[in-house]
């Protein structure tokens, strides 16, 4: 009997120790961060003369977003494998899930993917935790980078957009190069030439005209043979992506800012009297001439409405209109024209942009091979082929933008080249770089929805600014 009791006590003690072990190990293991990062870059290990075949036989794993640019890349991968002997395996996810997948994957600290697509805004989120490889040392190492890659050929504002010092509020173009521009989009107005011609309309030169135009199209287009057409397609879902295209472009053209920066302190500026007035006007425009069910609108719906002749205008990425404008792509193809959009007071054409960039996982075990892939994917040859034979438009390289074959391809789209050339130098990221970007812009989109729903702009934006001040400042 004694022995039995003794055994039970020993067993319980052992059981308790076993149960506690994972908890204790969890405490000891900390939070998944590790200290194996060194200051030296793996790029320093690459020496000798540059050789595309250096990593022959390696396999690089890529995570890609479903996009026409991605289709162009995949279609050309054979050329990369022939040039380098490196195989590329890839997974493609739709945009709704893509960034969640990438975020979770990077935060896990594993090297599931060596390279991936990301936007410049993601650098602000992924850079500070050390998930992104600084590509600067790779670019500067002539043993790792071929002379023909030609860094000076990139539009400088695009290369700078992926460069940051990781300090909140610090301007872009300084610090590490955490991604490379690969394809981009500038935000302009595209419009249906048929309805404009029939109603005798001209593209808006001011924001006031744009709001008026949106209402006129919604009121008059259905009676003029455009059944169910509304004025202007803009995004409205409860997402950061609602803020950055048309809204932020027009906001910036009005000389408005998301935050004011003083040293390292950021103060929300979405509630200045001018910002409140602008936001009210934007919501008013959407109510008067925007899409029904606006609060669920992403770029997919905006783009397809323009293509389906349901929207008279689109204020979004030029690519969103381009994919509908190409021959045979939609009922509206051949009837879509491009315009830089309304100017701000003083004629400002400040434009916000989105850059599809390519980055490297800081945990990748195949950095040399990954760099060869990034170098090839952002190189002149591949980008020229993609722009001419596929739909990888809005070139990140000056040489591709100036290429005669590219210009010939784009010339049949009314106003495309002129619009691109008008806004390209004034297009940059108009947001203040900071790690809470996604929270701030998602909350901003929610605020916009509330104002659209009838709440007072002043109180909603004051609430937003107060909430963000605690998180960002």
């Amino acid at each position: 009997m004694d022995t039995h009791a003794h055994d039970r006590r020993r067993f319980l003690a052992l059981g308790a120790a076993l149960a506690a072990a994972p908890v204790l190990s969890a405490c000891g293991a900390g939070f998944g961060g590790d200290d194996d990062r060194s200051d030296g870059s793996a790029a320093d290990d690459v020496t000798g003369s540059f050789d595309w075949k250096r990593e022959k036989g390696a396999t690089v794993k890529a995570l890609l977003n479903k996009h026409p640019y991605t289709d162009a890349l995949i279609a050309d991968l054979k050329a990369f494998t022939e040039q380098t002997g490196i195989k590329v395996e890839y997974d493609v996810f739709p945009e709704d899930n893509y960034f969640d997948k990438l975020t979770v994957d990077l935060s896990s600290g594993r090297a599931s993917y060596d390279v991936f697509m990301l936007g410049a805004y993601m650098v602000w989120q992924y850079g500070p935790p050390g998930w992104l490889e600084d590509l600067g040392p790779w670019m500067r190492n002539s043993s790792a980078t071929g002379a023909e890659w030609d860094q000076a050929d990139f539009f400088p504002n695009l290369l700078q957009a992926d460069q940051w010092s990781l300090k909140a509020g610090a301007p872009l173009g300084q610090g590490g190069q955490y991604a490379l521009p690969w394809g981009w989009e500038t935000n302009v107005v595209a419009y249906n030439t048929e309805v404009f011609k029939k109603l005798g309309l001209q593209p808006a030169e001011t924001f006031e005209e744009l709001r008026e135009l949106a209402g006129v199209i919604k009121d008059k287009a259905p009676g003029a043979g455009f059944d169910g057409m509304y004025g202007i397609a803009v995004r409205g879902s409860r997402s950061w992506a609602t803020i950055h295209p048309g809204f932020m472009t027009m906001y910036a053209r009005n000389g408005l800012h998301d935050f004011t920066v003083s040293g390292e302190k950021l103060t929300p500026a979405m509630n200045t009297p001018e910002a409140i007035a602008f936001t009210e006007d934007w919501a008013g425009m959407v109510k008067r001439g925007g899409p029904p069910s606006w609060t669920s609108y992403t770029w997919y719906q905006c783009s397809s409405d323009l293509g389906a002749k349901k929207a008279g205008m689109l204020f979004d990425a030029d690519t969103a209109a381009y994919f509908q404008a190409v021959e045979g792509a939609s009922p509206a193809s051949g009837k879509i024209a491009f315009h830089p959009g309304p100017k701000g007071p003083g004629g400002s054409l400040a434009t916000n942009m989105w850059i599809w960039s390519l980055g490297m996982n800081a945990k990748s075990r195949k950095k040399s091979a990954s760099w060869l892939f990034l170098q090839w994917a952002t190189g002149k040859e591949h980008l020229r082929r993609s722009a001419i034979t596929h739909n990888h438009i809005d070139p990140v390289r000056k040489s591709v933008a100036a290429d005669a074959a590219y210009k010939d391809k784009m010339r049949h789209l009314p106003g495309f080249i002129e619009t691109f050339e008008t806004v390209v130098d004034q297009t940059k990221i108009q947001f203040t770089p900071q790690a809470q970007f996604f929270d701030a812009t998602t909350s901003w989109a929610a605020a916009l929805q509330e104002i659209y729903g009838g709440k007072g702009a002043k109180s909603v934006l004051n609430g937003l600014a107060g909430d963000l001040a605690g998180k960002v400042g």
Partner: protein
Amino acid sequence: MRLALRPYFLIVPALLLTCGILYPFGLGLYYTLFDFSASKPQPDMVRFENYRTVFTQDSFWNSAWVTVLYAVGAAAVETVLGVAVALLLHRSSRVGRVLEKILILPLMIAPVIAAIIWKLMLQPSVGVVNHLLRPVGLGGVQWTDTPTGALLSSIAVDVWVYTPFVAILALAGLRSLPTSPFEAAAVDGARWWYTFRRLTLPMLWPYVLVAVIFRFMDSLKVFDIIYALTEGGPGDSTMVLQIRAYLEAIRFQRYSFGISYTIVLWAVVYLAAMILVRHLGKIQRKAAEAK
């Protein structure tokens, strides 16, 4: 000695399973005591600061209110409809058998897919719902564009998916009831409503309550339907606690803060479950006495 240890070895699988459940839970609880986020991978201990912040945020109380509204609304409508459908199917056995098979179709669709289907159907300009309502002058309803509409639409999708679950449970209950009390009532000339109120419902109540418990718990934890339908909008009108937690922990990468939300939700669900299960026990005893 060997014989004496045998019972303990038999509980090893259960012990391992318990550890497998408790480990992530305990780890999550532990993380809430820190300010762990992507921007702070080596965080400081902040003790209960995350909970304090959660409870002092207006957005939390809004989410809590929306969550309760959703759970109560969905569970109530599903219960009433589910019992009504079960009663109808129970009365007409041949048609009922065919309808039963059709009835379980929504349960075979993943809720997120159901929400996407409904999102398309509720689309104001091209959705089939407004198309059907157009002849009666209701073709312009903005189903998910207004705060009230978005919440009601989300509840409606939940009802569409899960009412069959309640109906099937209630139907199983109806078929297991003894027939003699009903035969006696019929002989006495009792009306349908009287029989339902005095006999059917008291005896059926334990089955209904099981369905209520399941549906209420699940509705408190809803994520997929609302996220696919409205993403928590417009504004914060359908921002239930689960979506708020997801945004905080995954989208905005404030891990500790996001987990704090889920721990609070867990406590609420746990308390609600305890109260309901205790109530179920009492009901079951009463029903047994009635039988």
